[in-house]
């Protein structure tokens, strides 16, 4: 899942890799840092995700050598959409979200389906627990169904991290594919920090 604040962004993913009812590995990272302004989270078919991220990094390096600058988050967002759609008839089975800082220094999140349909959003959940997570984010970050319509959210980093931890602890209770550990990437103007937070291992 990913969520954007005013001048920061958070991308969080659990680290369980499962195959049906079987847990392959308790630490197999699904979130990857692409640049010092962008992080991607992938769920779905792990091998596709890994190779997709590898291809993105390759394209980013080519871009770097051609233009002598790192790709911006919005450019990466567009690239991902195109790369996914290029495999329209044999798609990468991945559901990704990217989070980062855009050209204006604002936090941004892009979410995709497996064939490249893209949307810029404020927050997004993806993967096996997305139905369980999304309504919670709607309520806590989207401020949906509040009686005071003028209520505004001044999302601080501490609040955001707390929401992420709460959300993952709850999903771990009910989704068998989520658990073990959550990696929280915090993307700020001056770089990326990764925090780890243990989840239930059952």
């Amino acid at each position, binding site marked *: 899942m990913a969520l954007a604040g005013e001048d920061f962004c958070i991308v969080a993913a659990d680290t369980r*890799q499962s*195959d049906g009812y*079987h847990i*392959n*590995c*308790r*630490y*197999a990272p699904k979130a990857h840092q692409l640049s010092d302004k962008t992080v991607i989270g992938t769920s779905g*078919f*792990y*091998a596709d995700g*890994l*190779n997709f991220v590898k291809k993105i990094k390759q394209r980013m390096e080519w871009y770097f050598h051609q233009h002598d600058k790192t790709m911006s988050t919005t450019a990466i967002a567009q690239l991902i959409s195109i790369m996914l759609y290029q495999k329209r008839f*044999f798609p990468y089975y991945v559901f990704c979200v990217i989070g980062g800082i855009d050209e204006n220094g604002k936090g941004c999140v892009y979410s995709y389906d497996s064939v490249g349909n893209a949307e810029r959003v404020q927050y997004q959940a993806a993967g096996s627990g997305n139905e369980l997570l999304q309504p919670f984010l709607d309520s806590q970050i989207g401020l949906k169904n509040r009686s005071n319509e003028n209520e505004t959210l001044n999302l601080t980093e501490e609040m955001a991290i707390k929401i992420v931890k709460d959300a993952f602890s709850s999903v771990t209770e009910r989704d068998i594919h989520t658990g073990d550990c959550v990696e929280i990437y915090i993307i700020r103007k001056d770089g990326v920090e990764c925090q780890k937070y243990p989840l239930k291992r059952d």
Partner: protein
Amino acid sequence: MNYPNPFADAIDYQRMEQHYDQEALDSLNAISPMTRTQQPIVTGTSVLAVKYKDGIMMTTDCLASYGSLARFRNVERMLKVGDSTIIGASGDISDFQYITYLMDKLMTKEYNANNGQPLAPENIYEYLSQVMYQRRNKFDPLWNALVVGGFQDGKSFLGYVNLRGTTYQSETIATGYGAYIAQPLLRNAVEKRNGEPLTEEEAKKLLDDCMRVLFYRDARSLNKLQRATVTAAGVNISEPYSLETEWAFAENIRGYGA
């Protein structure tokens, strides 16, 4: 009792040949996909591996089954690649032999390059996982679950890759039936040590205990196994050996397990 015949498709194909003329057969081949490589034929069962103090320890048994038939009983399912890597294979044996050929080709190329930079276990693992992933993308997978173990420059490496190109690295790895039966025992043994690595003797006993349980419960296993270690001293694959087993009346046994 009818066991599924792995060649059932081929037999049906022959039958078709008797009924259809060549032209009809060609048009049939044009529309139906090739299915020859889409099931395993001669198979190996579990591979178990753990990290321990000095490197990696891995075990397999020596059986290659043909359906339920214990067809080849002296097969080595572990492959030494270079001086610091070992590959253990479960799944289709002929596909594993093709992987053996690939590794041989790769190491010959490395020898000729003679650049003084031997391939690290990580490099071999990456190569293998890309081969496996590309074959699944061609819908013609190599029907294996492979475990790559290595020890180089004081670091141990243990990784898994399967027919779909799915990969992970872990302290303990078990494939096939071992994933269900041995993996909990392995994880339990490693996790209760709180980061303190297993000694060689402990690792040996742990893997032997797991292989014994597997021999009791996995009908496609054999009590003739090999143990390999990858350490600073290099790769060592043992001669086949057997475990002590107990088949007497279970009068005094309470509960399950080793």
